[in-house]
């Protein structure tokens, strides 16, 4: 890397409402209480792989560095183990903040390209939305088709073994949808969609 880049951040490039917005979705009202102690990063089992440590994500969120926070790999590497949340001395629900950032990134299409976690989340929710349950085999197929079809070849051995051991079937798990009867999931979706509008 011989290239030198200029990194000054102008106030006009920040989003002054970003922190509020994220705190709102995340039930993370305590976001602003962060003292930047880094306990979250220290407790996080995945932090060594992140481009920004969780602490920096909190700082960037608070400071309105929207683009940086939303396009970071950090939020997609979060494995939802809740260690940061449990350990935070200010009781910030960091895992929920990460969820909120993921939601926002997907909405704003700012997540790193072909980053499979975001695709997984999308494919997963689409399947659940349609069938009410999730079938792991189909999920994996979609995931690889949308991200890296070549990697699927490597995974096919694993898939085959799972199939042979009876741990993965071709049958789609589903529950009746759109019956309009009592408890119908489709009715609930519709009600939620209406409320969203």
């Amino acid at each position: 890397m011989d290239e030198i880049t200029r990194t000054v951040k102008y106030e006009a490039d920040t989003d002054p409402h970003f922190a509020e917005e994220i705190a709102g979705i995340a039930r993370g009202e305590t976001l602003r209480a962060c003292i930047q102690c880094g306990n979250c990063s220290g407790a996080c089992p995945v932090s060594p792989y992140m481009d920004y440590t969780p602490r920096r994500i909190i700082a960037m969120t608070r400071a309105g560095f929207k683009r940086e926070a939303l396009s970071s790999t950090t939020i997609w590497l979060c494995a939802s183990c809740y260690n940061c949340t449990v350990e935070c001395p200010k009781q910030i629900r960091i895992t929920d903040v990460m969820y909120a950032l993921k939601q926002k990134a997907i909405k704003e299409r700012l997540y790193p390209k072909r980053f499979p976690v975001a695709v997984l989340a999308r494919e997963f929710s689409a399947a659940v939305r349609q069938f009410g349950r999730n079938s792991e085999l189909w999920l994996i197929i979609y995931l690889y088709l949308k991200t890296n079809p070549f990697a699927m070849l490597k995974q096919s051995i694993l898939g085959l073994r799972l199939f042979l051991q009876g741990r993965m079937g071709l049958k789609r798990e589903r529950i009746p949808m759109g019956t309009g009867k009592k408890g119908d999931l489709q009715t609930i979706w519709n009600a939620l969609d209406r409320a969203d509008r």
Partner: protein
Amino acid sequence: MNHLYYPGCSLKSTGRAYEESLLAVCATLGVGLTELQDWNCCGATSYMAIDEVKAFALAARNLALAEEQGKVGPGTPTVDLVAPCAACYLVLAKAQHCLEENKEVGGKITAALAAAQLQYTGRVVMRHPLDLFTNALGLDAIKAQVTKPLTGLKVACYYGCQIVRPYATFDDQYHPMTMDHLVTALGGTPVDWPLKTRCCGGSLTGTVQEVGLRMSYHLLKEARKRGADVLLTACPLCQFNLECYQDPMKALFPDHEPLPVLYFTQLMGLALGLERARLGLQRLFVPFRQPVGV
């Protein structure tokens, strides 16, 4: 004892052996599990990344179904809902907390459930099988039925993240012991190791494999280092990550040595003298060959 049972998607596929062994063990111990009819996916960690309200609504529908099928409502006692998958257990418990704490989200969800003539009144108690066995049934009752004690077997009990965090209700968040005590009751020897609650990598193993593999590799390595013959899990995803990826793990980390990874219910079944096939042991990638009860 009769309980409603929420299997979750994984127990119907990759985690089939968990369901098989759980049902077999419960039948032997006289614990009745009735599968929740028409249950839907809990939403897991993925839906939460898409839409919080919808994720909680997915969970809440199951809770409402449990109240209906458990025949509880205002003015009645509670019903137990047993969720063996750690992710399902957490998501359902988290939804309960959210419905209680957050009026705004709670209101939206209640309204959506009402559209489908469902309601949730807060009368479901989420239970993980570990909680069920150690606290509701009691270790003495289990001990009494052990026919093949796990004498000499060194076991690394792995709890993972989501049954102890962030809502540790039935066990200690930092040093959980329910599974260790269970192993002792079965005649085995739990090893003391520091990574009991360290994340296995979760869904990362499938998406950012180099990260997930390394996390799982370290867990297995440390368990071996502490002398474990077998590692026990209480979650289908943990079991999948730790067991099924041991071949690619070996490719990435040449010093990796295979270690059998079982559901704790499978080992329970062995100690209770059940046939291996009833416990789904034939589905293992890393076979567990150690004889028990000798």
